[in-house]
């Protein structure tokens, strides 16, 4: 309390800080999505703290994280965007597909880049239409395609004729995203698609799983978030659905989702966009420069979890893009437009990962003007309930580009026609 008051007093008296690099964090530490929002926000904040403490900022400029609570609510998200954009925000990462849909036109009009890492509007991968939106290292449609590929491999690799895949999804723009791809893939591979929406916040899934019990689909794919994930895994366990045939998207893939089901969650699979665990040299640096100094964000109990790593990865990609922007424009104090140039020229190589203490953490890629969503790779990770750890059980596999690319082309063309945008990158 005393510390809180001291901080409050200091903040009440302090004047706004001098020019620095502002990274807003539209986080959610409250509400039904907090179990997933907290680790991501902690990882995001801790990485920037590490940059400031260890490297003295990014290229000499201090990074400032502006946290704003959205509660995964679209209205609050927009309020956060409007309240922070005037502070010189460089890039927004709303961690919500609903908020992303709201922000795409607004941020494009305001000239602030949006990085929706593996979420948001999939067709924003088409940089020719979406100048200000990036979704590297992958999209929902990549994820859907990779999951189907994995299922195909499990079933002998030829056809899925006569199989049923059920999609349990959050009944929102987020959960509906993969449907189109899964429908196209159903035609290609011959499986039947069964759609099972779950309404916000996702605590009530009895009827959903009753339907699954009755229809006995061969596989269940989940597009869930927040409490919906843990409830689904518990319900799956209660109808004794085989866990290794239950595959989540990368947002249904954290410890906080599997732990509540205990032993029953053993074998649950999910797609991964990056490595798991604390076995990376960066954690030694985080310990010396952040944790041991008492600067860790939040309660400090999420270190090493999947979503903490993902928050860190989001921050790392932002920092690398900022460095690139500083390099291109020759100034340390970059603005949002320069940041966008940096994001478009971003190249993640093994050397970059190595230098950041994250060797082999994720696949390498190069963003281009046309492609804002490379590389579109994903691995499958599996939960081991005994050791309470995830492990990658496949290498990173590529999405079915012949299916995904035309869909991206089609959807982005529709957006361009609606919003009156002419393609760039010529």
């Amino acid at each position: 309390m005393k510390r809180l008051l001291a901080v409050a007093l200091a903040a009440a008296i302090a004047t706004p800080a001098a020019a620095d690099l502002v990274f807003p964090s539209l986080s959610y530490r409250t509400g039904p999505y907090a179990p997933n929002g907290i680790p991501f926000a902690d990882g995001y904040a801790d990485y920037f703290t590490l940059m400031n403490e260890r490297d003295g900022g990014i290229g000499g400029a201090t990074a400032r994280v502006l946290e704003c609570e959205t509660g995964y609510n679209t209205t609050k998200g927009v309020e956060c965007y409007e309240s922070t954009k005037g502070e010189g925000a460089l890039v927004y990462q709303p961690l919500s597909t609903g908020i992303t849909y709201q922000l795409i036109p607004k941020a494009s009009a305001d000239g602030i880049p949006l990085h929706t890492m593996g979420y948001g509007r999939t067709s924003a991968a088409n940089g020719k239409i979406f100048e200000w939106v990036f979704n590297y290292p992958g999209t929902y449609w990549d994820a859907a395609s990779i999951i189907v590929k994995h299922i195909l491999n499990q079933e002998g690799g030829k056809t899925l004729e006569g199989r049923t895949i059920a999609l349990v999804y959050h009944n929102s723009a987020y959960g509906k995203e993969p449907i189109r791809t899964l429908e196209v893939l159903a035609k290609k591979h011959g499986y039947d698609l069964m759609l099972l929406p779950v309404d916000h916040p996702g605590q009530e899934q009895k009827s959903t799983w009753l339907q699954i019990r009755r229809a006995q689909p061969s596989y269940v794919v989940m597009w869930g978030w927040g409490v919906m994930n843990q409830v689904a895994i518990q319900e799956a366990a209660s109808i004794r659905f085989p866990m290794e045939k239950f595959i989540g998207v990368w947002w249904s893939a954290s410890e906080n989702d599997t732990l509540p089901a205990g032993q029953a969650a053993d074998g649950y699979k999910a797609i991964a966009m990056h490595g798991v665990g604390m076995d990376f040299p960066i954690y030694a640096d985080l310990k010396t420069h952040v944790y041991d100094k008492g600067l860790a964000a939040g309660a400090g109990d999420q270190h090493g979890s999947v979503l903490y790593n993902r928050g860190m990865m989001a921050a790392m990609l932002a920092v690398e893009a900022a460095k690139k922007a500083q390099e291109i424009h020759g100034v340390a104090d970059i603005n949002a437009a320069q940041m966008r140039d940096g994001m478009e020229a971003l190249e993640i190589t093994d050397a970059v990962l190595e230098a950041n203490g994250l060797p082999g953490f994720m696949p390498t890629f190069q963003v281009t003007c046309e492609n804002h969503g490379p590389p579109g790779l994903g691995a499958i990770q599996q939960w081991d309930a005994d050791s309470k750890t995830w492990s990658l059980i496949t290498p990173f596999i590529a999405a079915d580009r012949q299916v995904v690319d035309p869909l991206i082309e089609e959807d982005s063309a529709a957006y361009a026609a609606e919003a009156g945008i002419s393609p760039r990158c010529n």
Partner: protein
Amino acid sequence: MFYREAGEFKTSYAADHATFPIRFDFWRFWIIVALAFLVVPFLVTDYWEKAVFLPFFVYALAAIGLNILTGYCGQVSLGTGGFMAVGAYGCYKFMTGLDIKWDREVDGQVTEVVLIDLPGLDIVSSTILGGLCAALVGVLFGLPSLRIKGFYLAVATLAAQFFLVWLFNKWSWAYNHSATGQITAPESFLFGVAVTGPNAPPWATYLLCLGFLFVFGWAARNLVRGRTGRSWMAIRDMDIAAEIIGVNPLLTKLSAFAVSSFFIGMAGALYFAVWQGAAEPTEAFGIDQSFEVLFMVIIGGLGSIFGSLVGAAFIVLLPVFFKNLMVTGFGAWIVAVPLGIIIGVALGALAFQLVAWALRRIAPGAATRGGAIAGLAVAAAGSIYFAGAAHSGLGWPTDIAEHMQIITVGGLIIFFLIKEPHGIAALWRTTKERLRLWPFPH
């Protein structure tokens, strides 16, 4: 003092029927309207537009709508979110060009039958037409009100809420078959200025929504004190008696449902098209919306247009206010100082009551003086502290601030409802009565 009727004489029926019989009220109202229309548009920024004014106008319109049904006609409704959705989707269909067509197969030849294929309409007509769609649906779901009352009707309207949200998730024609089920408002112009879409300047959307609120608030105020409004109130107060004196319950109840849903539908249309720009049914028009608007009406005051505005302000603005106070601050002294003084004085009044109450037990003679000293001290210190806080924020962690905000707003709701169960409007009414007599209480 300044607030009195002495010297104001009514010489005509028109004067007797005036909405603001007291000169002071009349001028205060017009000064606020003039400020809102002529001064604020020059000052409004993106943040104030999106986080403060548009939410307030939209919810005020919805609250007026629900107040007509619940406050004036006595029919409880939990379907507000669903009716807002009808307004929003209706507005969307009219904005993007309403089309009703289907394929007909004759001798193996597939031909497209086009019943209606309108061009896209402007935002004002779309909003009003969206409101009319909602009115139709409202009448339909209002039919059970002829048979059932009270809690049972609330359940029937709850069914409307869930059915409509389900419908807009399922019926792909309603969202123009978009892949994610989202509806996105196309850019539209009014007198050459963008009023929807990302390029709309804040003053334009502000004036549009304010215009809607002003015109329809005016209409509602005059509707409720006319013949229609009196028959609604007659039904509310005792439906059998009303029927005996010749009020037709069918027409009265259904007209209340129609007018109420019309307002709520327009609010939904503005909510989607102007304020948010895009919406998905489950989140934007869920049951939470229905409750939120119902709370506004209850806290503001049932059966009061002014109460609807105050209730909307209370529910919409307090969370934003506390969030700014506890985390980032408003950054402008012109806003921070008055807010700090308001909080300081409120705390001072509380301190006065508490200290005087405590002293009355120990030293009754010094109770008032001691209370006054404590109150003044707290008011002064509180004003300075909270002015600073409102300027640059308290810098609390965002999750603690969010929880504190929920607790504080909840506490204030309970406080106001205990203090005056008939809502803030009633509190305001008694304050006015006292002001008329002040400084002579008898």
